[in-house]
């Protein structure tokens, strides 16, 4: 009975996390020009996993909101930023 409960609770947790959208906060170096940084917004918007994107030069952060049930992996995030000409300092994920 204890095993069944453990499996059920694990499945519930997995289902809940899979259905949850995620906020990815990326700290970026070199992002000083709004005109040049439009490439970041355009690249992220082409991703089917991305629901919304915000670029903030003041905090040097790019914030991407993912759609539920879709994963945007760190390596994809890093490639999008580097393909736009910038350097990733860190990536923080928030539920």
């Amino acid at each position, binding site marked *: 009975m204890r095993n069944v409960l453990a499996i059920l609770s694990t499945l519930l947790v997995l289902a809940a996390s899979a259905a949850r959208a995620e906020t990815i906060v990326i700290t970026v*170096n*070199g*992002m*000083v*020009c*709004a*005109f*040049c*940084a*439009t*490439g*970041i*917004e*355009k*690249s992220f918007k*082409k991703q089917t996993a991305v629901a919304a994107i915000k*670029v*903030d*030069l*003041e905090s*040097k952060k790019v914030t991407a909101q993912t759609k539920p049930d879709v994963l945007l992996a760190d390596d994809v995030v890093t490639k999008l930023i*580097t*393909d*736009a*000409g*910038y*350097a990733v*300092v860190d990536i923080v994920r928030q539920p």
Partner: protein
Amino acid sequence: MKSVRRIFSQIMVVALVLAGLTAARVIAKPISYVGGTMIMQENDETGYTLTVDHTLTPKVAIGFYGKKEIHGDKFTVGGPQVNTLVRRWNLPDGQGNIFTMTGVGVAQRNGAGPNNTQFAAWTSLLADYETRRIFTSYELRLMYAQHIEKSAWQRARVGFAPYLGNYDDLNTWIMLQVDHYPAKSRATSITPLIRLFYKSFLAEGGVNTRGEVLFNWVQQF
């Protein structure tokens, strides 16, 4: 040869008209983001320039460069161009770059004559550094078009932002541009200008110390 000349003239006319009757050097970075396309267009006392670039990798873009030269010997030059990012420094509060732009094509002098259509080649070196507050750049361009043009040109720019615009704001820059054309009669040109940009559209305008108008624009797609 006449038909080649005619076709080349037609292509150049169409390209320049499509650009809004414009001329080209670099007013924005010649490499944008992978998959991005950029149209850059310049109009000043030297002529009308059009550059269209498509970025293939973070370090390479290909495109077209064309210019209708009206300063001194009047001619039109155009052809494919490759832009490369030689080095980039992504810093917490700044970015520095070194680019090259190199192309080959055809130059055509106005009027009829035995040497009026010639092979042309050009190359540029562009270095820039900017923060959210200051901007500096230097560009050296060499043009070779056999009997039509053999020249060097250099440009330096300094600028500052009177306020710190964020990504969704209209950004404003006050700049001073100095051009030096050793081969031309009016070798030096000094132009104060204002640059405005919002999201993926940039425009700038100014008047040089001789009263000649400069107007440039860039659109990213």
